[in-house]
């Protein structure tokens, strides 16, 4: 028996995949047939994406029907609701990880010096995840201090190892 949250997730995914499949089919249909180059019509660029799109539409439809039959459109009962809440702290950790990683890779990298960006990211990651509100001031200081040391070491080591040893260009 699959949990209701997974059935609901399947329903939403099926809708997304169905839309994606239809979009792919439409785009494939709109692709040029290259008649001016007098190519064999059986080799037009849209033929394979179009077929793949149709297969995706078929599979998404099966997933959609299956999820509806399994009760994906029904609202959850109270007990399922409580069970579905899960561990709030794990979602907080996930959100923080995603936010930090995206801010670093999409925001800082390429816009700020790579060593500085890496140092800031590692410092923020370690300090925020090891921060314990119940700790004494000295402990807080130690956590932040060690995070800064690790950040500096990683930023320097990455620059030296990859640029000098592996001859890799850094972003």
């Amino acid at each position, binding site marked *: 028996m699959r949990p209701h949250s*997974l059935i609901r*997730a399947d329903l939403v*995914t099926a809708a997304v*995949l169905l839309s994606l499949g239809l979009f*792919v089919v439409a785009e494939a249909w709109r*692709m*040029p047939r*290259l008649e001016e*180059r007098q*190519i*064999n019509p*059986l*080799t037009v*660029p*849209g*033929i*394979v*994406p179009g*077929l*793949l*799109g149709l*297969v*995706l539409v078929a*599979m*998404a439809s*099966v*997933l959609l029907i*299956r999820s509806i039959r399994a009760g994906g459109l029904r609202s959850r009962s109270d007990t399922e609701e409580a069970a579905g809440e899960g*561990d709030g702290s*794990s*979602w907080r*950790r*996930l959100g*923080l*990880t*995603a936010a*930090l*990683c*995206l801010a*670093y*890779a*999409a925001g800082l*990298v*390429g816009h700020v010096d790579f060593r500085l960006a*890496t140092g800031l*990211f*590692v410092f923020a*990651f*370690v300090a925020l*995840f*090891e921060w314990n509100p119940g700790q004494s001031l000295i402990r807080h200081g130690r956590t932040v201090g060690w995070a800064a040391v690790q950040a500096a070491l*990683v930023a320097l080591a*990455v620059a030296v190892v*990859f640029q000098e040893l*592996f*001859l*890799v*260009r*850094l*972003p």
Partner: protein
Amino acid sequence: MLDGLVQLADAVAHFAAWSTPFNVLWATLLGIVIGALPGLTATMGVALMTTLTYRMAPDQAILILICMYVGAIYGGSRSAILLNIPGTPANAATSLDGHPLAQTGRAGYAMGLATSASALGTIVGLLCLAVFAPMLAEFALDFGSFEFFWLAVFGVVISGQMTSLEDPLKGYIAGFLGLLVAMIGQEGIHAHARFSFGVADLTGGIGLIPALVGAFGFAEILTVMKNRRAELTASHVDRVLPRTADLWRYKRTVGRSGLVGTFVGVIPGVGEDIGAWVSYAAARRASKEKEQFGKGSMEGLMAAETGNSAAVPGALIPVLTLAIPGSAPAAVLLAAMFIHGVRPGPLIMFEAPEFVFRVVAMLLFATIAITVLGLAITRVLLLVLRVPREKLMPVVFVLCVIGPYAITNRLFDVYVMLVFGVIGFALREMKYPMAPLVLGIILGDILDKNLRRSLVLTDGDLGPFFLRPISMVLWVTTALIILFSIPAVKAAAGRLAARIRGRGD
């Protein structure tokens, strides 16, 4: 036979340089550490290392990647035994018996057995590679466009089926999503840019390495940080070196698991995790001590570790002979071979027969390295497992950013990694397997070109697609796999089989 041995000796001699043992040792050790750390997989390790070694000489670069691959699949047994968390998905079956052994104070011995089993499994696999790869390459010379088209379809379907046995539909969907990803960018016949929407970076297509670093690196970091922290079961280790009597007692299990693991490895996109499970199931069926399985059975532990390690050379057999990967890390290795100018495929035994035996030699070096390192540095690896994830994961993510950028020097590839990381995490949370997606990205181009070429050859006639002998075997097998994944058909077949058995009694 003698000819094969001579070629192997030549291959070993080819690597006679001081850089070889140095590279073998550090790459295998790094592989073991990556495999042992939950959240870092063999695929991610090989993908990252591909980006960092692409300026090296081809032979040494591929040697490093193979050592990393073998090391990581073996290294995952450490965390399976000590943390009850498989370091890589390939070690899930190992934790069933390895962890109970650790709980009874025999963690060291379990690690020693896992080391021996992994080494023996790799040896069985590499022997099969040396014997069967030339045969398969010769057989593959009969493959034309029709066969390669069906092989691509078969690969995606069997990979989807075997990596998602509970819900094959999700496996198929993952595979076809991979095929669609491969459609992005300029196609190989008329150079038309598909699905690029005027974005110049998309015209070049989605790189396999950035996509894999995202799906196996960033997605894993998100998963590890979401999960609860794992506790080490053993803080000290007992005797590590396995007794010869124990190894001899399980010789049949090792032989069977080695062959089963290799065979599963050969199946496109299935890989080490399924190799371990199938070997484990086969060993339990044949065992005299079935009731011990899952409670700390040495036989179960050895079957799982032999199976996953044998699947590594197994997965390289189709890489070398058909240019189709047997597993996700093998897909990266295939990409790395192309980067380094090696052209695997049916012609390999004509164009570069020595390369096949060099791969066998590389696997042999990696086997020696895992045996030596695995038995010698058990205590050091315990320390590695104590590194808190809060300190480790930001460093891993930094590597995930550097890796995709390293090959093309484009920030676009970093963004591809991010997008695939988020999508990979979401799909994994909803129980979609990743291996068919990877295989789909690799096979997309093969499927596309060969379908269109075949249609031109037959002028639109579909007959040869279904009537040529090898094509027929491939499409009939594919159709049966899909048919039997439908619950109603499976149930009807079960009822029919029961009725026939009933009549027979």
